[in-house]
């Protein structure tokens, strides 16, 4: 399954799709990019007159590129008939630098384990200068049903 096919299977749309490109994917990990549109609604309130990307949105971006794209890829390898969903189950993140409206980020995920339908990944997000803006560990259950 190639990157375009995985992107087509993502269950998100604007304003909650945080993947632009999937640069690389294999059974051990994934790399993708996203550019934060300066007109995204949450910038109006986070913060008043000083827009900065919320940590939860950075976490979501890492989850979509790392956990969800990789989870769909891994599950389609074992059973291409079924539709895969990835339910987020835990995150542990460190935030090092702010991400401002309009910035492009690159997320790299490395699989720690994928066993009994649970996918655990280490994820790192870098800005265009190549600086690490946040990193952590994220996991989810790869299921065939939504809300299973």
């Amino acid at each position: 399954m190639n990157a375009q096919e995985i992107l087509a299977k993502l269950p998100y749309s604007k304003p909650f799709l945080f993947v632009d490109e999937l640069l690389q994917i294999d059974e051990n990990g994934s790399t993708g990019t996203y550019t934060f549109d300066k007109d995204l609604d949450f910038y109006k309130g986070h913060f008043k007159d000083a827009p900065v990307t919320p940590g939860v949105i950075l976490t979501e971006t890492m989850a979509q590129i790392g956990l969800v794209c990789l989870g769909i890829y891994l599950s389609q390898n074992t059973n291409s008939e079924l539709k895969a969903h990835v339910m987020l189950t835990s995150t542990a993140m460190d935030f090092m630098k702010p991400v401002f409206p309009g910035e492009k980020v690159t997320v790299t995920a490395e699989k720690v384990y994928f066993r009994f339908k649970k996918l655990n990944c280490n994820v790192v997000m870098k800005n265009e200068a190549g600086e690490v803006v946040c990193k952590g560990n994220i996991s989810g259950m790869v299921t065939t049903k939504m809300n299973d």
Partner: protein
Amino acid sequence: MDREVLIAAIKEIAAPYTEDKTALDTINEDTDFIKDLKINSANLVDIVLDLEEKFGIEIDNDSMAKMLDVKSTVEVIEAKLAAHDRK
């Protein structure tokens, strides 16, 4: 290995994943991980991975599917340890 020892090991491994300390304190063969200890399926995977590491065994998908309560989990560990000893 003695069942009491196995149950004590399961109790120690399950401890960080449950909020229900009363159910944990009274853990026994009939304790159900999901219903009694209120552990979700994602944390149940971690418990099984921790048990693999502690006992040096490998748990397959079919065995994992049975490991919903303490009794079945003890039985799976005993069977894996016995198979391991025969090798």
